């Protein structure tokens, strides 16, 4: 259980970091060249792939769980960060740029704080989704055990329910804290 959690947390954190950087990049770079177009395509495919990837990878080892979490998290965080940064009024970045601030600094210090509460909330939701997908891998499977198929299904359903409720409860608990976060101030 502990190693499972560690693997998912590690992969999830890496996915958030990767998704965040890609999202920031795409938010300020319109579809100008091949790299941006290629990145968008990869992110879109990856966003649709997680359940399939999860099924193929059977993530029951710590590293596999971490990789599965990474694959699940990064496209969602990328798309979310891009959309939320784009929603910040252009006047904010223009104001910073007109003060002689370089582009990336303007994005990080002036634009991002405006989008940060929503991004933090979005990351919490993404983690809820990840926990939902990976909940089965937190337990050792015992397909050849004494339990019958019906009982197995019932236990799986119960686990699913428990993890969903736990994820939503975690999100609800963290929500006020995440909303009040004001980084880069």
């Amino acid at each position: 259980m502990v190693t499972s959690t560690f693997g998912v947390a590690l992969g999830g954190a890496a996915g958030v970091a990767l998704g965040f950087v890609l999202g920031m990049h795409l938010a300020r770079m319109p579809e100008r060249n091949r790299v941006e177009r290629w990145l968008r395509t990869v992110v879109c495919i990856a966003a649709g792939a997680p359940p399939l990837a999860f099924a193929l990878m059977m993530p029951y080892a710590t590293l596999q769980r971490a990789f599965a979490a990474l694959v699940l998290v990064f496209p969602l965080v990328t798309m979310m960060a891009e959309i939320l940064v784009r929603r910040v009024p252009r006047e904010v970045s223009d104001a910073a740029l007109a003060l002689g601030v370089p582009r990336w600094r303007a994005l990080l210090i002036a634009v991002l704080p405006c989008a940060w509460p929503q991004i933090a909330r979005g990351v919490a939701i993404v983690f809820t989704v990840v926990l939902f997908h990976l909940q089965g891998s937190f337990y050792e499977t015992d397909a050849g055990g004494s339990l019958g198929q019906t009982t197995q299904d019932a236990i799986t359903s119960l686990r699913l329910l428990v993890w969903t409720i736990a994820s939503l409860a975690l999100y609800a608990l963290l929500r006020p804290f995440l909303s009040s976060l004001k980084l880069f101030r």
Partner: protein
Amino acid sequence: MNDAARVKMHARGLHAFYGRKEALCNVTLPIIDKRVTAIIGPSECGKSTFVRCLNRMHELGEGASVRGEVLLNGSDIYASGLDPAPLRRRVGLIAKRPNVFPTMNVRENVLSGLRLNGIVPADSDEVVERCLKRVSLWIDTKDRLLEPAVSLSIGEQQRLCIARTLALEPEVILMDEPCSLLDPIATAKIEDLLRDLCDTCAVLVVTHSVQQAARVSDFAAFFLLGALVEYSDTDTLFTKPGDARTEDYLTGRFG
């Protein structure tokens, strides 16, 4: 010293484009130091584009480009390899709509230009007080410095934006219709401020209001369809315009 010798900025043969569309056509216009220059003209005549060309904000737009030269103290700001960021600190731009940083309080907004550029003032309280006093906002905000900047009225926010620019001690201040969203009282305060600002720097103000241009400026230019029609001192332009189109605009026949 005559005005010709005190040219702070000089646009020469300036063309600006949005993609293939030419928004400015061969504009040549001097901006005199320690004077207010007003640009008037109907909508879509290239006034704002011209102003944005002067501190290289125009080129940030998708597909936007510039041809020609703009001299600041005799040096071309479009010279190849020149970093636009330091230039923008020297040539401040005040937008039409107040654009305070919504996540910062009043004090942080005044210091934002310095802080975002990595400059740490020796006495930040003194900078805040000096800049807010300069824009006549100190009395109204000295007890609200830690309140969010968005809690101020629109007129106060606009003056806060000017204070934020003044903290960087620019050599030229460009104002793109700074009073277009303000009521007459707030407009009067900005107009008073324009006169004070030109004690230390050159001021260029874009306005839709012919009356405002007549009230506040020393020099005036009339733009039409992306071209500069006429430029002269304000008295001459308003009393003896040299071009029939200028006269038609000033007398309200179009625009």
